[in-house]
């Protein structure tokens, strides 16, 4: 397959999961994140909050990503998040691989939301088949489903990977842009595949999303304010002691060197008292702790983020069988039915994240 070098855009028909109205733009290579960030930061200045968010109807595609060279990068990633050393790429690493392409979409001039200050609300990833070092991948990314959130607009960045034309990975990252709004305060169904997809991606499968757990957390979908009883942490199964260095370390393996993760100084500039852990690091660590043996070759991994983890910090964690966690629709009793994880500030009730790991 001939890679088209540079920013030349080759138009072709959309495939697979992107809305039919989207057109595909081929990029020759995955763009480097550093440049995208500069572009994103610059662009953020001009992208002022306004009503009537319309997403670019474009799918970015890199047709041939050769993963032969990622072995060392993968080993570093596995070391940081606690995955066992393996030639199989965990879902979190596939997220890292596809993240620049999604970011490229977000830094487009016609992408209406500013990159800076966007909040990662949720992440859902599915691995359909194991991806190994040396596999050649086609990856795609686009934005869809801009919809109302009580504090702004939330949007899904979707990334897909194919090997030999077969889908192997699909990740949906939901971000919040504060202050923006969609027209009429509703979602934009024309740019969104439909409600059945929302059920499996937007919300956590098989369990109720605890909307009101956090005072300032996004209530799902319609932006309902927090109203229910406070969230009650389960009994922990583990404790993570996260050192200050985990921010820069995950920054190095993920490419996400957002200043809020890298140093206290950088975090203060954005209003945090100390550096904060990458949400995706905490989710990736939970995924790692379930482990390849129990999640299987094909699995879904979800995460929903609440209050950030300040570094250094101790986090109480409960990683439980879905059947033990009282998740009503666990497909099976015991480890075969998948896992639910929760993380909160050690010894307190401040919730950091929750999620699931479910064999498919």
């Amino acid at each position, binding site marked *: 397959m001939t890679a088209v070098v540079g920013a030349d855009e080759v138009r072709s028909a959309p495939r697979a999961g992107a809305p039919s109205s989207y057109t595909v733009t081929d990029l020759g290579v995955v763009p480097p994140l550093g440049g995208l960030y500069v572009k994103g930061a610059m662009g953020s200045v001009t992208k002022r909050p306004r009503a009537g968010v319309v997403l670019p109807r474009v799918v970015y595609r890199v047709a041939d990503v050769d993963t032969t060279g990622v072995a060392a990068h993968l080993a570093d990633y596995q070391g940081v998040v606690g995955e066992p050393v393996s030639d199989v790429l965990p879902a979190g690493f596939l997220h890292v691989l596809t993240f620049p392409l999604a970011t490229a979409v977000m830094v487009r001039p016609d992408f209406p939301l500013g990159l800076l200050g966007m909040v990662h609300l949720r992440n859902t990833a599915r691995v359909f088949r194991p991806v190994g070092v040396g596999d050649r991948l086609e990856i795609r990314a686009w934005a869809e489903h801009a919809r109302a959130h009580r504090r702004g607009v939330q949007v899904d960045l979707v990334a897909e990977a194919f090997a030999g034309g077969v889908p192997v990975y699909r990740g949906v990252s939901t971000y919040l842009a504060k202050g923006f709004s969609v027209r009429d305060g509703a979602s934009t169904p024309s740019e969104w595949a439909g409600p059945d997809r929302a059920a499996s991606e937007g919300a956590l499968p098989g369990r109720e999303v605890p909307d009101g757990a956090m005072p300032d957390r996004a209530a799902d979908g319609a932006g309902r304010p927090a109203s229910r009883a*406070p969230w009650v942490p389960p009994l922990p199964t*583990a*404790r993570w002691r996260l050192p200050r260095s985990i921010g820069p370390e995950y920054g190095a393996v993920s490419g996400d060197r957002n200043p809020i993760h890298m140093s206290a100084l950088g975090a203060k500039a954005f209003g945090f008292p100390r550096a904060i852990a990458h949400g995706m690091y905490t989710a990736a660590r939970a995924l790692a702790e379930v482990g390849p043996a129990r999640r299987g070759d094909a699995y879904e991994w979800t995460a929903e983020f609440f209050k950030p983890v300040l570094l250094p910090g101790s986090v109480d964690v409960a990683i439980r069988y879905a059947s033990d966690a009282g998740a009503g629709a666990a497909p099976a009793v015991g480890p075969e039915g998948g896992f639910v994880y929760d993380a909160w500030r050690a010894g307190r009730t401040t919730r950091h994240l929750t999620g699931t790991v479910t064999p498919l």
Partner: protein
Amino acid sequence: MASSIPTTREAVIIGGNRIPFARAGKKYVRTSNQDMFTAALEGLVARFGLQGELLGEVVGGAVLKNSRDFNLIRESVLGSSLAPATPAYDLQQACGTGLEAAIAVTNKIKLGQIESAVAGGTDTISDAPIAVGDKLRRALLQANHARSTGDRIKALLPVLGHPKWLAPETPDTGEPRTGLSMGEHQAITTAKWGITREAQDEIALRSHQNLYRAWEEGFFDDLVTPFRGLSRDDNLRGDTSAEKLAKLKPVFGRGLTGDDGAPLPATMTAGNSTPLTDGASAVLFGSRDWAEERNLPVLAKFVDAETAGVDFVHGHEGLLMAPAAAVPRLLARHGLTLEDIDFFEIHEAFAATVLTTLAAWEDEDYCRDELGLPGAFGKVDRSRLNVNGSSLAAGHPFAATGGRIVATAAKLVHAKAAETGKPARALISVCAAGGLGVTALVESA
């Protein structure tokens, strides 16, 4: 059920020896695992006149080991009065090490592979290994493998930039997979089972009272040899009381939340949790013929053993609950119930560990769902429980505890059988890190 056990010859317990257990950082400071295990061996050799004896095997281990101790037990044998030709090997199963060593050697005796053996273990917190961090270790290894001075300097350069890499790593009782200390794990199990502070303190009080009484009665005169000026377990508080125990502040289980959102009371204190301890123990086993040829006492038979593991990582089960699963299987194999047991030697990692195990066996749902039993396994007669004290009072040098308990159990059943003229049985249960449980059945010979 009993027919499923292959017929082999008996392995008998002849006697045991340990050094007094010392609280960490006290009497045995500057004393290594090898020093302590050698001392335990020497006391055993002296007790049974085994100088120059060629034993079938000496097996034991330590949970916390320095890298130089790769052949700890063999080195100890070479430093002892046993025949230097006595083979040995190290074995490790966390706190189950000592009991697992007993299982290993008795199996060989039963199979006729060896005639005699010593099993035991040793652990020291006071001389624990301290390792360098992974990053420094990698740099040092890389420098070590480097071919030129330049490469060596290159490998070490990053160390200069990261003075924090020089910080040593000390071992702790944290579970590698969860980062929770054993105490925190037990606190979660304690909360799940609703075990009260009072019940735990009562277990601790009885442990001290029973151990103290046993010492005063001379029970340990032929089970312990003093070491480095210590002639009794120095954690033992013969004068402790419910009031004193009640005054201690909880150390584990703070910050847990109940289903109703209210904070759960922290109930585990330094008084009802086992302190970190240094010590070593050794037990002499043999075939009956071997013992009788030497006119050595035969205290008991080491009948059988069963181990179990639980998935504590995902909170489905408590870290220290594996013995609850192992014991019903062990007893079923011999057609026995809890009523058939004269002595329960349940290792007191924490008072709550004993109580959650007992509670689990009394719980119908738990026994049905988790243990696959038709109903509740049964109730343990508290008057038969740890009658001469256990780890809360004696202390718990991880790998040494199995040997302590086996020797105690053997002596107890021997005395009981001599007194009643009927066979007596002891059940040994040891929980271990990693969600492991090691249990054994000992019967008067």
